[in-house]
C-alpha cells in the first residue's frame, strides 16, 4: 500500500512537538495515499429521508427532493457512523526500550494518537485504555474534538513503567468495554502467549474485533550486538552477562517461536496481527484499521 512515507517516517514524527501534530500528520499522510475515507461520517447505503434539522450538514440535504417538493430533507443511510474503536496501549516497562531516539512506547503512542484523530475525525467513537499489569488510565469512548483532546492528553501524560500482564488485563477489560467495535492493542506482547490469547479470546467472545499491533524495537528483533554485555532486564527480569554473538541464534529462535505461536493463535481466532518495528512508517498500522473499518462498513464484519 503506497503511503506518503515522509509524513509517516518515525524520525520525522519524533521531531514534532506534540501528539496532535503527529496525529494530523500521520492521518494526512495515510489519507493522501490511496485511503480515502470510505465514509464521511455516514454509512454508504441510503436508508431513508428525514426532515432537515438545524445542525445537519448542508451537504446531506437531498436537493432533488427540495426541487420537487420544496422540502428540506436529509438522507439517512443503513448505518450511521458511531463505529467504536477502543485503543489499548501497553505502558509496561518493556515498552520503554529503545535503540533509536524513540522508544516502542513513543511509537505506539504516535500510532494511537493518529488513530484517535482518524477515528474521531470520521465521527466514530474512540476510547483509550493505558495499561501495564493493570489498567492505569482510561478515556471512555466518545467522539468530538474534546474526546480527541482528552485522548491526546492522556497519552502525553503516560510514561512506560511497571510489569507486564497483557493477558490478565485483556481478560479483565473485555467485559468492561461497552461499545463493541474494533479493539486495537498496542504492545510488544512480551508475555505468556497462551495468557495473551486467552485475553484476546475473551475480547472476541465479547463481540469485539481485536487487532493486535506488536511493536518491537529493531534491535530486539535482530539482536545485532557485538560487545560483551551485561543485560539488565526491564520490569525487574534480572540481569545476565552474555556474549551476544554466542546466544544470538538461540535468542532469535526463542523470539521467532514466541511470535509464531502468537500469530498462530491470532489466526485461529481470526484476529489480525500486525508486527512492526519502531523504524518502520506508521501506515501499516493505520491501513490495518482502515481495512477493517471498510469491511465492517460493508457489513463484512468479522
Amino acid at each position, binding site marked *: 500500500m503506497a503511503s506518503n512515507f515522509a509524513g509517516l517516517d518515525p524520525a520525522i514524527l519524533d521531531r514534532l512537538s506534540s501528539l496532535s501534530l503527529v496525529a494530523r500528520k500521520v492521518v494526512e499522510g495515510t489519507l493522501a495515499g490511496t485511503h480515502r475515507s470510505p465514509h464521511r461520517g455516514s454509512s454508504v447505503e441510503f436508508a431513508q429521508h428525514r426532515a432537515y434539522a438545524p445542525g445537519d450538514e448542508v451537504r446531506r440535504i437531498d436537493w432533488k427532493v427540495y426541487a420537487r417538493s420544496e422540502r428540506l430533507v436529509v438522507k439517512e443511510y443503513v448505518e450511521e457512523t458511531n463505529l467504536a474503536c477502543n485503543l489499548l496501549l501497553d505502558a509496561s*516497562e*518493556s*515498552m*520503554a*526500550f529503545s535503540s533509536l531516539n524513540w522508544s*516502542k512506547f513513543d511509537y505506539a503512542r504516535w500510532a494511537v494518537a493518529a488513530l484517535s484523530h482518524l477515528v474521531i475525525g470520521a465521527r466514530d467513537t474512540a476510547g483509550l485504555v493505558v495499561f501495564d499489569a493493570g489498567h492505569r488510565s482510561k478515556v471512555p469512548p466518545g467522539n468530538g474534538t474534546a474526546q480527541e483532546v482528552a485522548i491526546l492528553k492522556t497519552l502525553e501524560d503516560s510514561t512506560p513503567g511497571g510489569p507486564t500482564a497483557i493477558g490478565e488485563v485483556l481478560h479483565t477489560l473485555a467485559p468492561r468495554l461497552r461499545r463493541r467495535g474494533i479493539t486495537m492493542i498496542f504492545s*510488544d506482547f*512480551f508475555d505468556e502467549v497462551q495468557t495473551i490469547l486467552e485475553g484476546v479470546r475473551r475480547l472476541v467472545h465479547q463481540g469485539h474485533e481485536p487487532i493486535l499491533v506488536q511493536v518491537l*524495537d529493531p534491535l*530486539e528483533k*535482530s539482536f*545485532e*550486538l*557485538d*560487545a*560483551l*554485555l*551485561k*543485560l*539488565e*532486564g*526491564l*520490569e525487574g*527480569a*534480572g*540481569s*545476565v*552477562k*552474555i*556474549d551476544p*554473538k*554466542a*546466544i*544470538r*541464534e*538461540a*535468542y532469535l*529462535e*526463542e*523470539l521467532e517461536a*514466541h511470535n509464531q505461536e502468537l500469530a498462530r493463535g491470532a489466526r485461529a481466532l481470526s484476529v489480525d496481527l500486525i508486527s512492526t518495528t519502531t523504524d518502520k512508517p506508521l501506515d501499516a498500522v493505520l491501513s490495518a484499521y482502515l481495512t477493517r473499518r471498510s469491511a465492517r462498513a460493508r457489513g463484512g464484519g468479522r
Partner: protein
Amino acid sequence: MFEGFVNPGLVIGTSLAAVPLLIHLLNRQRHRPLAWGAMRFVMAAYRKTRRRVQLENLLLLLLRMGVVALLALCVARPFVGSDGALGPLTEARQDVVLVVDASASMGYREDVETVFERSLRRATAFLEKLDGPRGDRAQLIVMGSTPRALGWGDPSKALALVPTLSPSAERADLAATLGKVLAICEEDASGTGSSHVQVRILCDLQADLFASLRGTLSAEDSGIQLGEEQEAESPGTEPLARQHLNKLQELGVRVLIEDHGPAPTNPANISIQSVRTLNQPIGEKSRVQVVVQVANHGTSPRPAERIALSVNGNKLPVAQVDLPPQGRAEALFSFQAETPGAQALLAQLEGDRLSADDSRAAVIVVPPAISVLVVNGAPSTDLEKDEVGYLLMALEPLRGGDGPGNTLSAPFAAHEIDPADLLASSLDLRDYDVIILAGVSSLPEVAVQGLTERVASGASLIFAMGSRLADLEGTNARLFRADGSGLLPAELVQKRSTSRRGRYWRVADFEETHPALRFFAEERWMPLLTEVPIYSFVEARPLEDAKVLASLDDEGQSPLLIERAFDQGRVYLWTTSFQREWTDIAVSPNTLVPLVHEWIVHAGGRNEGPREARPAESLGLILRNFPRSPQLVRPDGTGRPLAEEPVQQADGRWRLATLAPSDTALPGLYKVQLEGASAEPLAIALDPRESELERISPAALNGLHPALALAEANGETTGDTPLAPRRGELWRWLALAALTFLVAESIWSARLGRRRRITA
C-alpha cells in the same frame, strides 16, 4: 617427565601460558551494561546455550594456553633418557668432537699407509655415520703444538675437511687440546652440570703424548715452553692436562682414545736427535767441529748406520755409527768455515718408517773476527815496558806455513792506537766490538762521550791499569759516578804494590761458570790462573750492581776483575795491568792466551738471534746489514716476500719481521734471500721427543685418569665401559604439537566466529 632442559632458564616461559587465561578473566570484567526489554528470550537463550558456550570458550582457552606452553617448552628444549616413557620420541642427537693427532710421529708408515692416513680413514668412516638432518653435530680438532678447531656443525662439513688434513712436524700438546675440548663441553653443558658430547682422540698411543698426565708438575716441566692459549703451570701443581680431565669428568664426559698406531709396543725407529758444535768458531777460515747425535729407539741394534752431513749444500764424507738398542751414538764432523756467517747444516740418515726424523737441519753462526781496539796508554818499543805488547800477542797468534796447527784462524782483529787517536776523525768506534783502555791516564771529555755512546749501543769496554795511570782521583772524576752513569764499574782507591822478592798476590777466588773464566774451572788448568803472581794492583770499590769475577788473596779480597752491564754493552775493570812489571800473567802465555781469548770472545760476542726453532714456532732474524727485498723460501720451494719493514736495533743491526707459525710448519732448511747479499739460512727442526715411538699400554692408559678410556678401532669401548648415554631432545615434537594447537585454535576460532557472525 623430563630429565632436564638444555635451556633451563627459559622454562619460566611456560608461565606465559597464563596470559590467555588472564585476558579471559579481564574480559569478564568488561561487560557493558544494557537495559533490555526482551529479557525472557535472552534468559531462555542463555539457559539453552550456556553449557555449550562455556565448553566452546574453554576449549578455545585451553588451545591458546597450550600453544604458549608448548612453545615455551620447545624453546627450553627438554630432554629425556632413551629409556624413559618419552624415549621413543626423542631425537637422540649426537654431538661429537673428533681429535686427530697430527704430530710428527703419526707419519710412521706401516705397510702401505701411514698412521695418520689410517686415522683419517677412521675419521671419515665415523663422520659418515652421523646424521646431520637429525641434528648431529661434529667438530674436528687437529692436535699439534697448537690445536686447531675446524668448525662446529653439520658432520658433512667436517667430513669435507678430512681430506684436506695433513700431518705436521709438530709435537702434540695434549693439555692444550683437552683445553679446547673442555671449552666445547662446558658450552654444551650450559650450566646444566653435564655434557653429552662424545670425545674421541685418534692417535698412535705414543707414550710421550700422555707424559704430561703423570704425577705432579715438576719445576723442570713447568719450564716447558707453552703456546699462547695455554695457561702457565706452576711447579708443584697438578699438570694442566690432568686439571682439564678432572673438569671433563665432572661434566660426565669420557675421552675415548682410539689406537691407530703400529702394532709393536716399541716400533723400530732411528732418528737424528741433535746437530751441534763442539767448539766456538770465530772469524774466517775457522774450524768448526760438529757432532751429530743419532738415537736408536727400537729394541734391535743398528750397526753401521750411515750419517751424512752437508754444509751449505756441500756434502762431507759420510760417517758410520753403531747404534745399540735403545741407545745413542755420535758422529763427529769437521769443516772449515771459509767466511764468517750462518752456515746451513743438514744431517741425514737413510730413511726408515718414520722419515720426519731422518734428517735434521741446523744453522751455526760463525761470527766474524771480533774487532778489538786497543788504546795503548804507554807505548814502547820495549815489549816488557809496552803496556799492550803481550796483550796484542795473545790477541793475534802467529800464522805459520802449512801443516797441522799452523793454519790458525784469527778470531780477533786487533787495532792499536794512542790515546790521542781517540779524537781522530778517521776513527769510528762503531767498527769495534771491544775497546781496551790499557793504562790510559787521561781522556778528553769528547772521547769519554764517544766511548759512552759506543758502550751504550752494545760494545764492551775494558779498563786495564798501567804505569801512567797515576791520577786515580782524576780518573774517578772523569769516569766514575756513584749513580752508575759513569763508565767505570768501580771507584779506584789506591795502588798497591809489592816487591818481586817479597810476598805477592794471587787470585784467590773466581767465577768458575763465567764464560771468560770457565776455562780455568777445570782442575788441571786452575793453577794457571790462581798461582800466577800479581805484584801490583789498584784497589777498587765496585758499584752495587757490578759483579766481581775474580778477587785476590789480600786481606780485603780486593777485586781483580769486575764486570758491569752498561746499557746495551758491558764494562770491565782489570785492576792490574798487562805489563810484566805488574803481573807475571803477561809473560805466562798459558794463562794469558786462554784468559784473553775467552774474555774477549765473551765481551765481543753478539746475540745473533735464534736461527733454529721447532715446527710452527715463531722465529725472528737479526742481520748485521740492512736487508733488501727479503724473500722467505721454505724447504719445499714455496715462499713469500717479507714485506714488513725491518727495524734497526740500538747496536746497529737489523731485525726482520718475525716469521709466523704458518711460515715454519715444515722441518728443514729455510732461506731468507736478500738482494745484493748472501741468503741467510734458518733451520726448523723436529722436537726429538717425537721420535720416541714407544706406545703406552692399554692398562697404563686406563689407569692414567678415570675420564680416559681406550676404545677399539671400531669405536666401541673395551671391557665394561659403556658409551655415554645419548640425550634425546623433544623440541621438534613440541614444536609440532604447538603448531597443531595453533592450527586447531585458528580453525576453532574461525568456526565459532562463523557461527556467531551477525548476518544481515
